C-alpha cells in the first residue's frame, strides 16, 4: 500500500472524466457550468484541479458524484468512467441513483469546502459519522460507533470519545473539517474528492489538515481529486495538476511542470499573481506586485512618511458574557488586551494572527465601532475615545473601513452609485451633480467602468465588489483605512489586482492602512510594519523585514512555518507542525491579566516577553 508512489503512470486510472459537459437550466436558457473537461485519476495519486471561482471545479466534482442533479444541473455530454471495487468499469453518468447511492460514500468519498455548514447541526458528530457505515457496511450501532471512534483517532482529533457525543457547533472549524474528512474516509473509498477543504481555515489549521490528508492518502492509497484555487496548496499537495478556466481544461501536467514551465498564458498569469512568502526578502519597503501581462507596470517602493498618524496605547476591549438569573456579567471575552502600536502617515501596519485572536475587534475598537474598555486612540492629534457622539461622527469621516466579505458588506438592495455616494450624503460634503461627478471619479479611480454605477452588487464579481467597497471608503478622503481581511475572500488574480490598487492609492494619496489579515504572504507584500496577535495581545511587532526574517516569538515562528509555500519542492511534513489549541479568551469577572512587557530586540522590533498564553 505504502508505495504506490506518486507519478506511477503505469496503473490503470481509477476514474476517467471524458469530454464532460454540464448544463444548468436557468431562466436565461441553459448555462454550461463545465464545457469540456477530460482528465484521469490514477490510484494513489493526487490530482489538483485549480482555477478561479466559477471555473467549474465544483461542478465537475459534483458531477462525478452525480450530485449535480440535485442542484439543478444535468450532465449533457461525456462519460464518467469509474473503476468499481469488485472489478468492472462503469459509466457513472448513466447509472441509476440507486447504484450511485451504493457508490457514494462507499467507493467515492467527498469533503466539502465549508466545514461550518457541511455538517448537519442537529445531529451529533458520532451519529453523522456512523450513518454511512451503517448504510454501506450494514454495521450495528455499536460497531459503527466503535468504528467512528477509530476514524476520529485516525484524523487525530483530541479527545475523540467526547467528540462523538458533541454537536458540530461545539467543535472548532479545524475539528469540524477533520470530522468531515473522517466521514469521507469512513468506508475507505477508493477515490476521495476534496472540494477546497482548507479554504475556510486558518493557516495553521490548513497546514495540519493538508498534512493529515497527505498522510491518510499515503496510508490508505486512495486516489484524491483535490480542488483548490490556492496555488500554494497545490504546490503542497499535488502529484498532477489540472488547470481549469471558464469551464474548460486549459492545461494539465505534473506539479513540477506546471509550476516551473507553465504553458498556457492563464496559468502563467495565475502563478504570477500568487504572492509567495519570502519574495520580499531584502526589500525594506512594500511594493506592488508584478503582474503577468502588464509590461508597462512601474514598480516603485512606497516609502510613506515618518509622521505619526495614529497612536494606539493600551487598548483593551472586552465583551461581557451575561449569565445567571439576573443577567449579570459573569465573565468577559478578552478580545483585545493591552494593545499598543502606531501607524505613520502613508504607511501600513498589518495585524496577523489566527481566527479569533482579536484582529477585527482591534480594528473596530480603533474606529469605535465597538466601545473599548480603556486605552487611548489618537488620530491626527484628536483623542478618538474621548469624543462625544457628534464629534465622533465627524471624526469618522477621517477613518474608514473595508470589510472582508464583499458579498456581505454591500447592501444588496442599493445601486452601486448610491452606496458609494452614501457617505457623501451622510456628511453632506457634496451635493447633486457634484456628488455624481465625484462618484464617477471614484469609479475611475478604482478602475471600474462607469457603466457599473447603476448596477446592483449581485451583478458583480467579488473583486469588483471589493473595489466598490474601496471606492466607498475613499469617498470622504479619509486619512486612515482599516482593511479587515479586505482581500482574503478574493481569487488570487483578483486579490493581486486589489492589493496593487490599494498600494497605488496609498502611494498617490498618502493613505495609512491598518491591514488586518491572516495571509502571511499578502502581509509580507503590503506592510511597512507587522504586528502578530495572539489571544488578544500583540506578541511581536516591528518592521516587516525584521518580523518576517527574524521572528523571535515562538508563536510567530510556528505561524511562519505553517504558511504553505507555492513551490512544490518545499513541501512541509506533518511532524514539523505542532500547534497547541488556542486557549479560551473568556475569563471570569475580575480577572486581570498580567502586565505586558516587551523587549526591543532591534530598533522598532518588539517581542512580548511576559506570558501570552502560548
Amino acid at each position, binding site marked *: 500500500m505504502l508505495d504506490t508512489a506518486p507519478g506511477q503512470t503505469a496503473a490503470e486510472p481509477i476514474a476517467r472524466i471524458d469530454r464532460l459537459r454540464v448544463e444548468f437550466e436557468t431562466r436565461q436558457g441553459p448555462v454550461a457550468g463545465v464545457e469540456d473537461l477530460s482528465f484521469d485519476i490514477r490510484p494513489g495519486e493526487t490530482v489538483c484541479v485549480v482555477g478561479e471561482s466559477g471555473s467549474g471545479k465544483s461542478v465537475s466534482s459534483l458531477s462525478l458524484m452525480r450530485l449535480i442533479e440535485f442542484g439543478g444541473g444535468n450532465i449533457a455530454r461525456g462519460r464518467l468512467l469509474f473503476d468499481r471495487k469488485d472489478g468492472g468499469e462503469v459509466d457513472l453518468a448513466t447509472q441509476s441513483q440507486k447504484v450511485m447511492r451504493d457508490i457514494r460514500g462507499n467507493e467515492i468519498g467527498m469533503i466539502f469546502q465549508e466545514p461550518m455548514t457541511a455538517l448537519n447541526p442537529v445531529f451529533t458528530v458520532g451519529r453523522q459519522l456512523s450513518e454511512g457505515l451503517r448504510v454501506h457496511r450494514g454495521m450495528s450501532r455499536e460497531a459503527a460507533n466503535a468504528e467512528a471512534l477509530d476514524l476520529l483517532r485516525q484524523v487525530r482529533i483530541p479527545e475523540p470519545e467526547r467528540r462523538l457525543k458533541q454537536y458540530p457547533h461545539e467543535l472548532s472549524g479545524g475539528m469540524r473539517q477533520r470530522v468531515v474528512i473522517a466521514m469521507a474516509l469512513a468506508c475507505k473509498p477508493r477515490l476521495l474528492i476534496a472540494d477546497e477543504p482548507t479554504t475556510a481555515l486558518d493557516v495553521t489549521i490548513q497546514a495540519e489538515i493538508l498534512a493529515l490528508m497527505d498522510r491518510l492518502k499515503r496510508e490508505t492509497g486512495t486516489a484524491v481529486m483535490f480542488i483548490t484555487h490556492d496555488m500554494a496548496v497545490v504546490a503542497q499537495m499535488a502529484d498532477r495538476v489540472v488547470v481549469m478556466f471558464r469551464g474548460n481544461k486549459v492545461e494539465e501536467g505534473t506539479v513540477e511542470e506546471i509550476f516551473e514551465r507553465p504553458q498556457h498564458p492563464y496559468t502563467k498569469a495565475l502563478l504570477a499573481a500568487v504572492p509567495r512568502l519570502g519574495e520580499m526578502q531584502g526589500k525594506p519597503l512594500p511594493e506592488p506586485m508584478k503582474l503577468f501581462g502588464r509590461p508597462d507596470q512601474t514598480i516603485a517602493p512606497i516609502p510613506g512618511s515618518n509622521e505619526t498618524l495614529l497612536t494606539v496605547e493600551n487598548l483593551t476591549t472586552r465583551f461581557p458574557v451575561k449569565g445567571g438569573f439576573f443577567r449579570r456579567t459573569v465573565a468577559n471575552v478578552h478580545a483585545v488586551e493591552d494593545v499598543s502600536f502606531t501607524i505613520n502617515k502613508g504607511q501600513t501596519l498589518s495585524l496577523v494572527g489566527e481566527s479569533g485572536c482579536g484582529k477585527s475587534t482591534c480594528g473596530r475598537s480603533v474606529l469605535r465601532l465597538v466601545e473599548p474598555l480603556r486605552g487611548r486612540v489618537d488620530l491626527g492629534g484628536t483623542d478618538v475615545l474621548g469624543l462625544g457622539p457628534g464629534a465622533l461622527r465627524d471624526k*469618522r469621516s477621517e477613518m474608514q*473601513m473595508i470589510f472582508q466579505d464583499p458579498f*456581505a*458588506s454591500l447592501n444588496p438592495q442599493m445601486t452601486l452609485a448610491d452606496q458609494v455616494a452614501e457617505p457623501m450624503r451622510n456628511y453632506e460634503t457634496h451635493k447633486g451633480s457634484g456628488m455624481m461627478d465625484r462618484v464617477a471619479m471614484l469609479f*475611475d479611480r478604482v478602475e471600474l467602468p462607469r457603466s457599473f454605477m447603476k448596477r446592483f452588487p*449581485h451583478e458583480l464579481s467579488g473583486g*469588483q465588489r471589493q473595489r466598490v467597497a474601496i471606492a466607498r471608503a475613499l469617498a470622504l478622503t479619509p486619512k486612515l483605512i482599516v482593511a479587515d481581511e479586505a482581500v482574503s475572500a478574493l481569487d488570487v*488574480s483578483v486579490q493581486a489586482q486589489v492589493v496593487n490598487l490599494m498600494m497605488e492609492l496609498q502611494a498617490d*494619496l498618502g493613505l495609512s492602512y491598518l491591514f488586518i489579515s491572516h495571509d502571511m504572504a499578502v502581509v509580507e507584500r503590503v506592510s511597512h510594519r507587522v504586528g502578530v496577535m495572539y489571544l488578544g495581545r500583540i506578541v511581536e511587532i516591528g518592521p516587516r523585514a525584521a518580523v518576517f526574517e527574524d521572528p523571535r516569538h515562538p508563536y510567530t515562528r510556528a505561524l511562519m512555518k505553517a504558511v504553505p509555500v507555492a513551490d512544490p519542492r518545499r513541501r512541509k511534513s506533518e511532524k514539523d507542525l505542532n500547534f497547541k489549541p488556542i486557549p479560551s479568551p473568556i475569563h471570569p469577572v475580575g480577572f486581570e491579566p498580567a502586565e505586558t512587557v516587551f523587549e526591543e530586540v532591534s530598533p522598532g522590533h518588539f517581542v512580548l516577553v511576559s506570558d501570552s498564553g502560548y
Partner: protein
Amino acid sequence: MTDSPQDDLIVAAGADLPIEALKDTVPDTPPVSKWSAIWSQFRKHKGAMTGAFFLAIITLGVLLGPYLWTLDPQTLDIRAKDMRPIYTALWNAEAKTGWSHPLGTDQLGRDNLSQLIAGGRASMAVGWAAMLLSLLIGTAVGVMAGYFRKLDGPLMRLTDLFLSLPILPLLLVAVTLFRQPLRANFGPEGGMFVLIVAVVGITSWMPTARIVRGDILAIKEREFVLAARSIGTRSSLIIRRHLLPNVLSPIMVSATLGLATAIITESALSFLGVGFPSDFPTWGKMLADAVARMEDFPERVVLPGVAISLTVLGVNYLGDGLRDALDPRLRGR
C-alpha cells in the same frame, strides 16, 4: 474639500490587462433600472401574473362598477325580492329571473350585483387599509425591537399584551369612546370604517412584528450595516436605507396574509353583529346574512364567498411573485 490630494485620483493608472483571462467578467446585459428588472422578473411568475390579473379585475370592477351598473345597492324593491341570477333560467325555467337584476336580488329586493360592487368597495377598502395599518405598526415595532436592544424586551412584552387583547370588547370600547367624534368627522359609514380599520389593524400587527424583528436581528449582524455605521450613517437612515429594503419580502408575505385576515375579520365582525351600519353592504356581511338562506339561494353565499376567495388568492399569489421579484439576488438568476 475639493482641493485635497484626492483630486489627483483622476490621474488613474490603468492600462488594460492584455490577457483576457485575468479580467473580471463584466455582466453582458445592459444595466436596467430596478423597477423594470423587478417587473421583468415578476412577469415570469405565472401565478403572480394570474393573481395580479384577478386582483386588477376585481379592483377595477368595484371601482368602476358603480358607473357601469348604476342601481343603488340600498334601494329596496320589495316586489322584485328574492330574484334568482339570470343563469338559473338555463336549467330552471320557472325561476324568478330578469335582466333588470342579472345576479338576482335579496330578501328585501336589493340588487345583488350592485351590492356586490358596493360591498367589494367596502371590503377592499377595509382590507387594504387595515392591512397597511397593521403592517405599519408591525414593521415599526419589529424594527424598533430588533434594532434597539433596549427596546426589545418591552416591545415584545407589548406584543404579548396585544396578542391577548380580545378583539370584541376592544371594538365595543372603541365604538363607545370614539364613535361620536369619528362620526362627526367622517360621517356614519366613514367613522365606522376608521374604527374597524383601527381595531383590526391594532389587533393584527403582532405576527408581522415578530417576523420583522427576527429578520432585523439577523440583518443587523450583516457587514453592510456595520459598513453603513462606519461611514457615518445615522440610525434612522440605516433603518430606512439598509434594513427596511432587506426585510421587504417577509413584510410582503405578512401583507398578503394580512389582507386576507382583515377582510375575513371584518366579515366575522359583521357576522357577530358589530360592524358597519346594517344597510351598508360588505362582502362579509352579505355572506353572513345569506347563510340562513343558503339552500334556496346559494348564489347569495357563493358570490361574495368567491369574491373574497379570489381576492385573497390573488393577493397571495401576487405576494409570492413580488417576494421573488423584490429580491435582487433571485432577480439576477
